[in-house]
């Protein structure tokens, strides 16, 4: 401070200066998803730089994978994206099956579609509810968890667990569905369908929500691809890519004969936006609102896929098939497989050497790449927009740190 300012307080009043400041957000901030620490370089309310610090949930999953058999690794995949354990199980199982050149029975295939899509709804519900929390509204969280609870009840009936399932496994599934399960699942879908309108009233068309998310954190398609983003983050930027349609044969064969449209904006409209609210004027393609809306559309898409899967599964007559032995040997060779998990493309890379234990296990996490784009998105935004942007990426730290 110069002598002049110290002497004359009026000058200070007319010239309020802000200094550059480092603000620490996390690692236990309630509105960051899991244990994420952000260091913001701010000037007043404007953020000039964001540096994510990750690794608080690192549990050496890849190293553990080298010391146990391929099937024993299934429970560890549950703990990666713990909000979509079923989809994680599926990704690892398919990668191992690709190496073993194993094909599951038709019945197991349809049951996998059914379970994986239910898992996607459950994950998107958390994504939606937690996004409301990030923006300071508590109610959508309760609404979302009310429905998620019913899905977890269905999962509990099917496999006994509510969070870490290990249900889908190498060679099939650990058990068949209990009697009456399909009826209860259908009842849930019928109950759930009209409720989606409530979510749209609570968030999608809510004026405050649109103001907080529309035009915020705009991610261009080129940048999204360059950063390796995937899933709703990529589709929210208008890139038409979904591994269920564009992935490798072993994965797309699972969805053979299923009718679904990839939730991405084409020619200014979304494929299913006829019955749903129009895109608000404030929203720009690639912003937080679009990433959120793609998830909402995928909930509807998954419901349609589940209905188709129920029909196909009940039409199957054969048996479910047996999973491989716990200590089944896996052949020499290496495979990489990406599946479309709720958060994005989850890739598993696996090297076998003829023993039950893989030589190397690698998990390529979608949230890891989705989060790496955060410093670009937050450049020049307000501090209050940072949680809005982090929430719209819908990350899970368990999957990032592994």
């Amino acid at each position, binding site marked *: 401070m110069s002598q002049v300012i110290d002497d004359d307080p009026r000058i200070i009043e007319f010239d309020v200066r802000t200094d550059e400041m480092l603000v620490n957000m996390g690692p236990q901030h309630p509105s960051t998803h899991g244990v994420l620490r952000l260091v913001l370089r701010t000037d007043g309310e404007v953020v000039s730089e964001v540096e994510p610090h*990750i*690794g608080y949930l*690192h549990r*050496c999953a*890849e*190293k553990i994978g080298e010391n146990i058999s391929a099937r024993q690794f299934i429970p560890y995949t549950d703990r990666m994206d713990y909000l979509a354990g079923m989809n994680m199980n599926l990704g690892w199982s398919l990668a191992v099956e*690709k*190496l073993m*050149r194993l094909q599951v029975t038709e019945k197991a295939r349809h049951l996998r579609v059914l379970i994986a899509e239910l898992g996607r709804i459950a994950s998107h519900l958390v994504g939606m509810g937690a996004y409301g929390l990030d923006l300071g509204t508590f109610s959508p969280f309760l609404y979302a968890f009310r429905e998620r609870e019913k899905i977890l009840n269905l999962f509990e009936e099917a496999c006994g667990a509510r969070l870490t399932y290990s249900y889908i496994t190498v060679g099939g599934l650990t058990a068949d569905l209990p009697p009456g399960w399909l009826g209860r699942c259908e009842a849930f879908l019928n109950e759930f369908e009209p409720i989606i309108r409530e979510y749209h009233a609570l968030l999608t068309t809510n004026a405050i929500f649109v103001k907080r998310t529309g035009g915020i954190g705009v991610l261009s398609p080129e*940048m999204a*691809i*360059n*950063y*390796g983003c995937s899933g709703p983050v990529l589709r929210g930027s208008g*890139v038409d*890519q979904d591994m269920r349609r*564009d992935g*490798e044969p072993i994965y797309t064969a699972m969805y053979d004969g299923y009718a679904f449209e990839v939730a991405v904006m084409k020619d200014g409209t979304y494929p299913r936006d006829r019955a749903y609210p129009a895109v608000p004027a404030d929203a720009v393609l690639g912003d937080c609102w679009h990433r959120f809306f793609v998830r909402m559309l995928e909930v509807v898409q998954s419901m349609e896929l589940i209905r188709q899967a129920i029909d196909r599964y009940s039409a199957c007559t054969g048996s479910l098939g047996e999973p491989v032995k716990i200590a089944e040997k896996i052949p020499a*060779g*290496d*495979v*990489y497989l*990406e599946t479309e998990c709720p958060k994005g*493309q989850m*890739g598993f*890379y696996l*090297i076998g050497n003829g023993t039950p234990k893989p*030589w*190397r296990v*690698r998990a*390529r996490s979608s949230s*890891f*790449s989705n989060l*790496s*784009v955060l410093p670009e998105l937050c450049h020049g935004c307000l501090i209050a927009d940072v949680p809005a942007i982090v929430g719209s990426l819908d990350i899970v730290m368990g999957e990032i*740190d*592994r």
Partner: protein
Amino acid sequence: MRGPAFVELLEAAVPGGVVGTNLEAIDPWVEVVPAAVADVCRWLHDSSETGFDSLQCITAVDWFESDPKKAAKAGWDPHLELVYHLWSTRARVSLVLKTKLPRWKDDQPGQPPEVASVAGIWRSADWHEREVYDLSGVRFVGHPDLRRILCPEDWEGFPLRKDYEMPLEYHGIRGR
């Protein structure tokens, strides 16, 4: 795109870069010399015939067997292998690129081997290379900010090396 014709294109673009291929593997791969990684990746990204605009994953594999009996039968010399998984969003095809590095630079244990960074080509490589450096110990030359990413900054050693030993203690916490 896949197959021998593509490998010929790559060989013409970067002479002497390709040292091996396996087109019969479940995931066909191309092996390049470490010195050519940057050139090959630049060509794969920029060339309109290939257009691999996305880098999905970088993996380091430690080929090392501590048991001398097993090592004699292993069929390979100890080395470190980098595996790049590329993806083209336009053509919707993938590509596996491999390169072999020595386990340690100048055979001095503890000194990570070096290879050119591709973070300037694909931004996704930024974090992936940091992770490979952190867990497997490969120094990416030209990386904008090569620090540990998952382990604490003062962690010692590279946990995904096959001969890694957990430290006895870390800041008063028992390791093993």
